[in-house]
């Protein structure tokens, strides 16, 4: 974890080489000390374990995210370089695309998940959150991951998309596969891909127009084909983007928020005193835990960043989680503060590829936290939380809690 050497790359400043493996289970268990090492070593570091550059300070992460011409996505946002390796699945038309191709598909999904659409689904999402709290109040003791963080998005998102009831058990394993696959060829990635065939088959099937209920997000994407904005072959791949990125991320986001509020009772009390802070409490949990920890970009030319020179065709790993706790940007970054001004955090990314489903995530987080805080006086952790390991996502596997009704 130390700066093993500072290789001279000709012309100062030399880029520090680190022997950190940011895709090891030991790192996932507690990434924060290593985040400090990464940020303090320099604006840009080189990770010998996977032969990639890394940026972990807020300024450089933000700069890379906001320069898509230099740091492209079309060569893959995982370690694999699509120019040199065949992708494990057909590339995403939005995540793994650059302008101008990206611009058109992005516009379609932005409209399907717009603030106007969120107004329309808000009451439904809020009612489902209330129903979930009813169930939890009936149990009193439960697993806040399975029974809350997973159960709630599963009760609304597949329906909002317009999925059939059968086969939904493939959704979370598929998402977990997608996010593991952004990582290096380690055990997590290999095993996920080896077991992926049934999940991939299910997803491919659900993306077809005839399998998506009218009025849902999926059908709305297909309707853009009739307007001539996308082709009939593109539409299923855009539906796939929502299936890949729309569920496991919110599970981890809601899980992070509940974990924060259970760990920091003063913040829970603050939220009870002012439930209008629910939305910001969720946003702060996304900053604090960064459910999506990393993404890669690939350089399209030689570039200088943070005083360091990087050649063309190099992978650059962005540590979103480290940027979100960079003391150069945030006051008391390791404190979960539900009144913090979170604007500018990179938990949803930044720039043209910033999470297209961010409004759905915030809506789910807000209505769930506000339902919880209005009806529950106390959340207590009653057992050791277990972490779930994934090459990209940070979250828990289980969180035993007991609640006291308000």
């Amino acid at each position, binding site marked *: 974890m130390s700066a093993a050497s500072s290789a001279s790359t000709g012309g100062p400043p030399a880029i520090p080489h680190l022997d950190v493996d940011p895709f090891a289970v030991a790192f996932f268990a507690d990434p924060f000390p290593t985040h400090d090492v990464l940020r303090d070593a320099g604006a840009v570091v080189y990770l010998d374990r996977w032969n990639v550059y890394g940026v972990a300070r807020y300024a450089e992460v933000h700069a890379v995210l906001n320069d898509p011409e230099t740091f492209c996505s079309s060569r893959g946002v995982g370690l694999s370089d699509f120019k040199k390796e065949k992708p494990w699945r057909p590339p995403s038309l939005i995540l793994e695309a650059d302008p101008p191709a990206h611009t058109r598909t992005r516009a379609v999904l*932005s409209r399907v998940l717009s*603030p*106007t659409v969120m107004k329309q689904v808000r009451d439904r999402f809020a009612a489902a959150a209330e129903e979930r709290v009813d169930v939890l109040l009936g149990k009193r003791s439960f697993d806040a991951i399975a029974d809350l963080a997973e159960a709630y998005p599963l009760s609304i998102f597949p329906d909002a998309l317009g999925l059939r009831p059968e086969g939904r058990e493939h959704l979370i394993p598929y998402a977990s596969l997608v996010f593991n696959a952004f990582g290096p060829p380690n055990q997590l990635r290999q095993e996920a891909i080896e077991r992926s065939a049934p999940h991939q088959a299910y997803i491919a099937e659900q993306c077809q127009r005839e399998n998506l209920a009218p009025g849902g997000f999926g059908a709305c994407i297909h309707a853009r084909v009739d307007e001539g904005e996308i082709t009939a072959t593109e539409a299923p791949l855009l539906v796939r983007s929502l299936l890949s990125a729309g569920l496991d991320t919110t599970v981890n986001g809601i899980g992070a928020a509940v974990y924060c509020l259970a760990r920091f009772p003063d913040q829970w009390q603050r939220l009870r005193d002012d439930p209008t802070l629910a939305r910001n409490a969720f946003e702060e949990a996304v900053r604090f835990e960064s459910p999506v920890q990393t993404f890669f970009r690939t350089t399209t030319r030689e570039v200088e960043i943070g005083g360091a020179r990087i050649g063309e065709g190099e992978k650059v790993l962005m540590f979103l989680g480290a940027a979100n706790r960079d003391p150069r940007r945030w006051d008391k970054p390791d404190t979960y503060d539900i009144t913090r001004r979170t604007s500018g955090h990179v938990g949803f990314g930044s720039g043209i590829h910033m999470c297209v489903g961010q409004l759905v995530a915030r809506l789910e987080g807000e209505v769930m936290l506000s339902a919880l805080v209005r009806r529950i006086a106390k959340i207590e952790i009653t057992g050791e939380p277990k972490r779930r390991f994934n090459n990209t996502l940070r979250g828990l596997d289980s969180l035993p809690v007991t609640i006291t009704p308000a």
Partner: protein
Amino acid sequence: MPAIIFIHSGGKTSGGKTDRIDVSDGESAMQAATRHGLDGILAECGGNAMCATCHVYVDDGWLARLPAMADDEDALLDGAAAERTANSRLSCQIKITPELDGLVLRLPERQV
């Protein structure tokens, strides 16, 4: 350094209150507002024109002097939490130049 003026909506505590804020080179009205910790601008997406939570009403006299609205801003404003009017803009899309010194922006009642 140009300065812009935010007028708070008629809420309980801040109704009609005015904040005069200095804007640094190249900043948007939203960036200046969040940097100063101004209540009433949320800017959840951080200025990427994706969330409609930095909605403002531009004072009549200034409206015509702002750069034209792009299609994505127009579409987002339809989803703003407070009523959209002919004066509605997203403050993240208003880049402050010396010519906009003294710009007056009114804050809506709510952003979400």
